[in-house]
């Protein structure tokens, strides 16, 4: 018995779920609010329209979502509740009480700060998705909901890909699947294994939010989708002069034809959106007209020569964000040197790593105000210079390194917070050698090892022991 939408009405019960209210009817499914569940949160039922007379896409995408959604965990994905079999198809999941991203589309272009805020939230959710082996492959405003606390939730996994499971969609259909404005060039060419396809879609979303225009329009046919392989979009600053060069740099980098020219990970994108002064500007930032046909054609040819087939895990692993915390005020030179040697070793294995150098400075509560005046400003600048000086021998490309000063009464807590906010993969810290100092200040490294949401390397200088 295939579910027939015409015959479902409020009060009907499907495997213990009582249909309360039809929330929406889309092209491939209807969504009902339901009651009588054991979950301690509101639940919806997604009921696909399955026609067994040849509508394979809806069947395969139903199966795909049914397999992928239960494997996702965390605040950025709806909790999976239950699913029915293919002769009684439904997926029960958490109802996200929030605001769909579509709501923002009514007031385009948005304030730039709002575009950035949304960009960070969606990039964070994408990173969490990719870390769980899944590529969304149909990211668009309809599939993003913002929770009241600001977290972005990604919904609809009908076209998604889990990199450790068979891709049910890939071989079943000869035509690419996706949505006109947002589908990436490599998806148009049939590649469904690159997490940077989601970054392309996010670039299109940010472009749209910031300008009110879709960079590649809304082509309905696949022939139209292919145009993004060789037609360069109008630079967003041309459409909205409030867009700063650094934001244009980020957006245009996201919608590059070749995935290798985009951000390597969503975490690195979120990092740049939150540290605009650290974004290295290229010709993209100042561009005011679309590139000519020949220029974009050469990019397309490059893409065809090097078909992107990165593999999700390898892609994430090759581009971690590494943060190294230094206390250069401690005048012993051995520890910073030991930390540099350790950092060098770690960087050598990951060519696309992003390095954040942090000057961690413990201050007392009374000092907080003092740091605001001019002397404080000078101290701040001097510390940045010291950091830069420390990192010189590492010879990291300019666009891959940032410098920051973290001042806190509780350096360990500040570092843990920083690691979480910036989705740091690997944190390198020094261990204080002197037990006297440790007694007074507490062991920062021990607290970090215990609580940081990432890999932590604690460096100790042998010369100090």
């Amino acid at each position: 018995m295939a579910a027939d939408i015409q015959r479902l009405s409020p009060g009907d019960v499907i495997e213990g779920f009582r249909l309360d209210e039809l929330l929406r009817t889309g092209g491939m499914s209807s969504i009902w609010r339901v009651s009588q569940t054991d979950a301690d949160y509101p639940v919806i039922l997604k009921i696909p329209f399955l026609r067994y007379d040849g509508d394979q896409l809806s069947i395969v995408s139903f199966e795909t979502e049914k397999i992928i959604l239960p494997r996702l965990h965390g605040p950025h994905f709806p909790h999976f509740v239950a699913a029915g079999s293919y002769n009684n198809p439904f997926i029960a999941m958490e109802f996200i009480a929030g605001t769909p991203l579509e709501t923002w589309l009514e007031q385009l272009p948005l304030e730039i700060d709002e575009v950035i805020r949304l960009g960070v939230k969606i990039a964070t959710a994408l990173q969490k998705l990719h870390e769980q082996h899944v590529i969304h492959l149909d990211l668009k405003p309809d599939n993003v909901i913002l929770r009241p606390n600001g977290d972005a939730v990604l919904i609809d996994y009908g076209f998604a890909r889990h990199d450790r499971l068979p891709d049910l969609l890939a071989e079943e259909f000869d035509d690419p699947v996706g949505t006109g404005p947002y589908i990436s060039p490599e998806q148009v060419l049939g590649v469904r294994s690159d997490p940077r396809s989601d970054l392309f879609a996010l670039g299109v979303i940010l472009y749209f939010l910031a300008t009110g225009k879709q960079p590649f329009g809304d082509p309905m046919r696949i022939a139209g989708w292919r145009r993004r392989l060789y037609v360069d979009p109008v630079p967003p600053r041309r459409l909205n002069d409030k867009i700063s060069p650094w934001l244009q740099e980020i957006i245009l980098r996201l919608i590059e034809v070749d995935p290798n020219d985009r951000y390597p990970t969503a975490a690195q994108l979120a990092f740049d959106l939150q540290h605009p002064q650290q974004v290295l500007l290229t010709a993209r930032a100042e561009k005011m007209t679309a590139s000519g046909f020949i220029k974009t054609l050469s990019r397309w040819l490059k893409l065809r020569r090097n078909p992107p087939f990165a593999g999700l895990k390898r892609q994430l692993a090759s581009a971690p964000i590494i943060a190294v915390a230094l206390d250069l005020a401690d005048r012993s030179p051995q520890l910073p040197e030991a930390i540099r040697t350790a950092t060098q070793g770690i960087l050598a294995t990951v060519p696309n790593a992003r390095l954040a150098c942090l000057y961690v400075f413990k201050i007392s509560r009374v000092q907080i105000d003092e740091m605001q005046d001019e002397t404080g400003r000078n101290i701040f600048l001097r510390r940045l210079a010291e950091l830069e000086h420390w990192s010189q021998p590492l010879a990291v490309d300019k666009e891959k390194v940032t410098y920051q000063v973290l001042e806190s009464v509780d350096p360990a807590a500040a570092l843990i917070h920083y690691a979480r906010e910036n989705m740091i993969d690997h944190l390198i810290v020094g261990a204080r050698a002197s037990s006297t100092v440790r007694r007074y200040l507490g062991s920062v490294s021990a607290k970090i090892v215990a609580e940081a949401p990432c890999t932590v390397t604690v460096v100790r200088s042998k010369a100090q022991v």
Partner: protein
Amino acid sequence: MRIALLSDIHANREALEACLGHAAEMGAERYIFLGDYVGYGADPEWVTDKIADYVAKGAIALLGNHDAAVFRPDAHMNDIATAAIEWTRTRLNARQQAFLQSLPLQKQEDDVLFVHASADSPEAWHYVTDSAAARRTFEASKARLIFCGHVHVPCIYRITTTAKVIEFTPADSTPVELSPIWRWLNVIGAVGQPRDRLPAAAYAIFDTARNRVAHYRVPYDTAGAAAKIRAAGLPDVLSARLLQGY
């Protein structure tokens, strides 16, 4: 019901012990052995007795080509395999040989078929090494799920509604849903002689309630198993390949 599927043990006691231990930890409630208990390895008696014990307790064991060669010479076997079988024959007593002789070629339960080699003439021992061979197996059986061994390399095949046969290399320890929309063929890797350049023993667990299969790799004492093969005077290549998984 979680069913452990073990194939191509090839008289490798160390590998079988490791897999049985792993399967028990994973909550296996039932065992199906897909054939080739002997040949190549140094412990045919111990392995045959172990399988017979499991069968006495309700497990299913199918016949493999090496098991059959113990009581019926196989002209298709290469010299090394033949040498190993001749040595094996001298080691197995009448009871052990009779046990091997009693094993069926295949077993069907509802819409699930278990077989050592291809379902397409199981006694011909065809290898399911590619989509074309998988298609012949799909065409020979009506079963929705087919589990076989014989190839020594794990693989999952699916035949789509448009009759395309799609190949997938399973990721270690990741359960794969065998969606009832399609028919699936799982080639279970070898416990006793893996050939995909990964020396760890291979087996799988089919979870009937959740309709999922997980292929596992279990590291074991390859050096110990290889040393016994050398000590038994079996061809050197049989010990060397265990260390490399080829």
